């Protein structure tokens, strides 16, 4: 393959990986706070459809993006209420959220199927940086939503590991009782992180319908929400690793077509599509070994509802 094709494939990997990255970052926030939200797919779909609806109505994709985040955040708030306040089972509630989100988005989006978007997010080359050979076209010739993640990922990393609120966040996920004893408001913080997590999932959905496709189609996330959930484990709850992982998963997506268009290598596309899940399984196997768990394991209180009276 020529270098230009490699560059194009890497750039396509980033575009294809970004929606998964948004959703995975959101899920990392929620899971770091000790809440397992399996409703990512549903929240992404609701984000995708509301974002598209608003962007079509207003002609402003940023407006759509904003509303997508709010709508998915609202859905996450419902989830938070059920699991944090009412202490419902997180796995069951998450699955219910996905099913609800899938249905709701299909219902809302019905009249918008096949309608063209007047204005979508278009790639914008960053001056100077885009001129750098290889790195420029791969990293700095994308739509604004991709650049947003370049800022978001280091920001989250810094927040997690270098700030006091970040420490509190990890504490309520590891040992909420101890955090509570120290005067950290476990309930309020869990609410906040679950809702922000949902907003990011909505952003991932809006990326699909406003920049990647750009159109609305029932069930258009096509399992990307579940890939994001898997990616969180793959990335061991670390935003930087989530970035790399999502580009890897996105690369598999992009490679499916590039291999056909630019080479004579005939790897069945079904095989390639299977790879992200195999990789996740491998990481799961490694991550469950006792010696490793201490270093990179899941948040201690993940999926366990916090109840003050049960201390």
């Amino acid at each position, binding site marked *: 393959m020529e270098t230009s094709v490699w560059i194009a494939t890497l750039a396509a990997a980033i575009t294809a990986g970004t929606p998964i990255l948004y959703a995975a970052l959101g899920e990392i926030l929620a899971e770091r706070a000790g809440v397992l939200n399996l409703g990512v797919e549903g929240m992404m779909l609701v984000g995708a459809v509301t974002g598209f609806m608003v962007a079509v109505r207003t002609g402003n994709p940023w407006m759509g993006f904003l509303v997508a985040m709010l709508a998915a955040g609202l859905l996450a708030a419902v989830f938070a209420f059920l699991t944090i306040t009412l202490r419902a089972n997180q796995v069951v509630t998450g699955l219910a959220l996905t099913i609800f989100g899938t249905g709701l988005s299909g219902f*809302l989006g019905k009249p918008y199927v096949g309608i063209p978007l007047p204005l979508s997010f278009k790639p914008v080359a960053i001056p100077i940086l885009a001129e750098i050979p290889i790195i420029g076209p791969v990293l700095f010739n994308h739509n604004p939503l991709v650049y947003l993640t370049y800022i978001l990922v280091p920001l989250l990393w810094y927040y997690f590991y270098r700030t006091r609120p970040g420490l509190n966040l990890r504490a309520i996920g590891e040992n909420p009782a101890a955090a509570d004893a120290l005067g950290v408001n476990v309930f309020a913080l869990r609410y906040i992180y679950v809702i922000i997590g949902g907003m990011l999932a909505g952003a991932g959905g809006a990326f699909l319908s406003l920049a990647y496709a750009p159109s609305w189609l029932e069930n258009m996330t096509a399992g990307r929400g579940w890939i994001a959930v898997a990616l969180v484990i793959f990335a061991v709850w670390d935003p930087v690793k989530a970035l790399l992982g999502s580009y890897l998963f996105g690369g598999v997506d992009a490679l499916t077509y590039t291999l*056909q268009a630019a080479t004579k290598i005939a790897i069945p596309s079904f095989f390639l599509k299977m790879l992200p899940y195999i990789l996740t399984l491998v990481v799961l196997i490694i991550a469950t070994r006792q010696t490793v768990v201490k270093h990179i394991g899941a948040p201690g209180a993940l999926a366990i509802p916090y109840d003050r009276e049960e201390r």
Partner: protein
Amino acid sequence: MRKGWRLILILLLVLAVTLFAAGCGGKKEAGNNQSGQNQPAGGQAAEEKMKVAFIYVGPIGDAGWTWAHEQGRQYLAEKLPWVEASYVENVPEGADVERVLTELAEKGNKVIFATSFGYMDYVIKVAEKYPNVVFMHCSGYKTAQNVGTYFAAMEEPRYLSGMVAGKMTKSNVLGYVAAHPIPEVIRGINAFTLGARSVNPDVKVKVVWTNTWYDPAAEKQAALSLLDAGADVIAQHQDTPGPQQAAQERGKYGIGYNSDMRQFAPEANLTSPVWNWGPYYVKVVEAVKNGTWKSEDYYGTMKDGIIDLGPYNDKVPQEVRDLVDAKKQEIIDGKFYVFQGPIKDQSGKVRVQEGQKMSHEEVLGVNWFVEGVEGDIPK
């Protein structure tokens, strides 16, 4: 006491969500009345209407395959006021088909149009149980006493669109986003390639398979990979304008499919081979009503008007239009046949001798690429 509060809260929440959903849905209905408009107003005519049903693989708004059939249904409802034409959309090619077909037959539909290849076996199965219902299956090859098939020589307009692409390319590399490796798609790729090479013998056609009929994101991604590999005109055998949008984004050209796709890619879309099902649907339903319908294997042509080459983009120069229009007339007059020899396959072996034509059966079952196509047919 706390338990009671919880229950009330949950109930309120469910209520709020339901109301929210209903409210949004209601507004949407009002904004989109194009589908409702064409439904015959129930109860207006006292006499019994003849019921006809369509089942679609995609949504009616796909701007592609299903949209074209839906135009045909609307045409039918408009031309024959005594027909009540309903549809079921988004029926995937799976076990659900049997249920949907059975329901439609039970509801008293006299003619059922099944508009996707993968419905074939279900159509045959259900048709056995309802001998008094006429089933029309689009693009298949199995018929029965009460099952007819219908399709058309899309290779004719595809050949013409290939000529346009061959004239407009600068890199001499054309890209083709293809759905599934079945004869219908392979036939289209061959016709497109023959057309392109008839005006520009240096042209190569690169093929990428998406393994889906309908997935805007995947189709666009596949088109982008072809553009990255050097193609500067993107043709498609897909049901959404995704590939056209990719061409538009990169400032290259595209050839659409199913319907005029210029509105989705005004700068890029040069023209599109299009379907025009309406008149045929009228003919079939009238024949059933008059009792003259017989099971047949209908294969329409451009002469019948069931297929055509859509309008040109302003960017297509007059000389190219003249050239293509002249060839179109030759096809309509029966002076030119798309699959006439000599035709070589990818290895350079002559598959159709000079002066010979591929038979209808050979055309329908084609499983090899002509010379000039780059790509494999997955087994």
